[in-house]
């Protein structure tokens, strides 16, 4: 526990508390987008605007987690692998186990903080008052619903260079945000794009958050969609770890003892 405690404190300071860029892109930028799109670039009756502000709250919560997964988690892990921190830890008796657990905990806490702050901004700007139960439900849906997205972040960290991880992040975040209706309503997209978009974990999570905000029950097929995505991504991570271990051996010791 002492090792885990220290790892959490060590990683929290370098990843979050002393890293303004990370704080900006993960938390402040989605909040800025929310204010911009619901207060500045909006037209319609007050009732219509309120409906949009509620809907957009879910979108920006998911967008914040998406950014955290791809530009936060993926790049931090890639960087640590690149700079041999993981190699150095793997040679110690406690290994890398606590590193991974602590990064997982910190990412979840950052996600929760982003969600709470987003709810607070919605309350201050649009008087969207969620009860404690609703607020917690939104947090739970957002954290669990975006597990596959966090998994994609982990997958991107296996790229060979930081540049490649960055390219993967850019090619994932922005198309995914557009086709799953996080920036603009999905109904504005062509039918075929909507079909793809509605199958993405980002759309499913954003939809469930909106249902929770509006006190509606969650459809079982949407929950199942998230479960299926999570399983798929976990299997991919498992396969990739095995492949990396194998190719790592090939790269480092293509040879054998003879």
């Amino acid at each position, binding site marked *: 526990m002492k090792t885990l405690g220290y790892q959490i404190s*060590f990683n929290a*300071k*370098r*990843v979050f508390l002393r890293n303004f860029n990370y704080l900006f892109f993960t938390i402040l930028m989605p909040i800025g987008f929310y204010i911009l799109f619901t207060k500045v670039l909006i037209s319609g009756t007050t009732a219509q605007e309120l409906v949009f502000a509620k809907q957009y709250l879910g979108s920006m919560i998911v967008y914040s987690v998406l950014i955290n997964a791809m530009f936060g988690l993926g790049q931090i892990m890639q960087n640590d692998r690149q*700079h*041999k921190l993981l190699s150095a830890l793997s040679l110690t008796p406690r*290994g890398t186990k606590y590193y991974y657990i602590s990064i997982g905990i910190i990412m979840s806490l950052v996600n929760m903080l982003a969600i709470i702050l987003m709810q607070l901004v919605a309350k201050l700007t649009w008087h969207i008052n969620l009860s404690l139960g609703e607020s917690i439900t939104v947090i739970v849906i957002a954290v669990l619903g975006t597990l596959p997205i966090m998994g994609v972040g982990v997958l991107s960290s296996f790229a060979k260079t930081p540049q490649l991880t960055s390219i993967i992040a850019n090619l994932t975040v922005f198309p995914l945000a557009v086709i799953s209706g996080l920036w603009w309503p999905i109904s504005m997209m062509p039918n075929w794009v909507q079909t793809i978009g509605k199958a993405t974990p980002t759309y499913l999570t954003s939809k469930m958050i909106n249902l929770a905000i509006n006190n509606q029950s969650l459809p079982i097929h949407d929950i199942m969609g998230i479960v299926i995505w999570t399983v798929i991504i976990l299997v991919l991570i498992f396969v990739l770890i095995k492949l990396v271990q194998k190719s790592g051996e090939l790269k*480092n010791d293509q040879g054998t003892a*003879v």
Partner: protein
Amino acid sequence: MTAAIQLKNLSFAYPNKRVLDHLNLQIQSGEIFGLVGPNGAGKTTLLNLIQGILSSHNHTITVLDSQPGSTIVKEKVATMFQDDLQINNVTVREFIKLFAAQATHPKNPETVIKELGLTDIQNQLMNKLSGGQRRKVSFASAIVSNPQLLFLDEPTVGMDAETRQNFWRYIEKLRQQNVTIVITSHYLEEIQKVADRIAILQDGQFRYVGTWQTLQSHHDNGQFNFNTQLERSLFTHLPAVESATQTDANMTLISNDTDLTLKALLPFIDQLHDITITRESLESIFLEMTNKGDH
């Protein structure tokens, strides 16, 4: 004395190249062992195998009576890597404490910081340090785990003269604590001073394993320098003298057997002043040996 590291007939090959070829070696507990060799000799591969970073599969390596990479070995072994870890937004103190937290029986990080003279920079961010400071921090992060066996890969690169001196002083302290230390370095004069034994690795084979003194006795070249009023021709035909150079009163003799030449100089000793005898350094012996291997 027990063996800290034992290699028995260790070979290792990449698909197109054999890197290590039937190596046998015992490094005793508490010994300081210098591993030298030209680039590409197989030093890094050997160290990676001993540490368990690479797998030897067939039990040809024993480290502290266990297999490389086992938890027991990880508890007792630490490494100062050639490349320093570059972790942003972390202070020196936090970095050293991380490795203490990862260890089973660590030293007190505060003590290590103090002993290595890192107190002044302990709150500085790692990414703001100079190359020499980063080496010191890497060393601190290795020894904070309180290892019985320590690998030092090019430990003094980038360190200034004073830091280097303090570093070797600390190594002597670890020797007194019976820590086994394996050092690879391109600064051969440092290895010559500190190592109990050395191994010269070339093309995957040990060309020499033993003490520096024994190696030097097999390479008895040396240089005599003195002031004299005697004629140069008197020295050119002395036993083992290869050349004699005179500049005013200063004479320099190159000998291929310093003991023999010294005996021959004794009859003239009253007329020789300010005599210095320089025997061949590890570096020149190393270059001689490894260049021979090239041809």
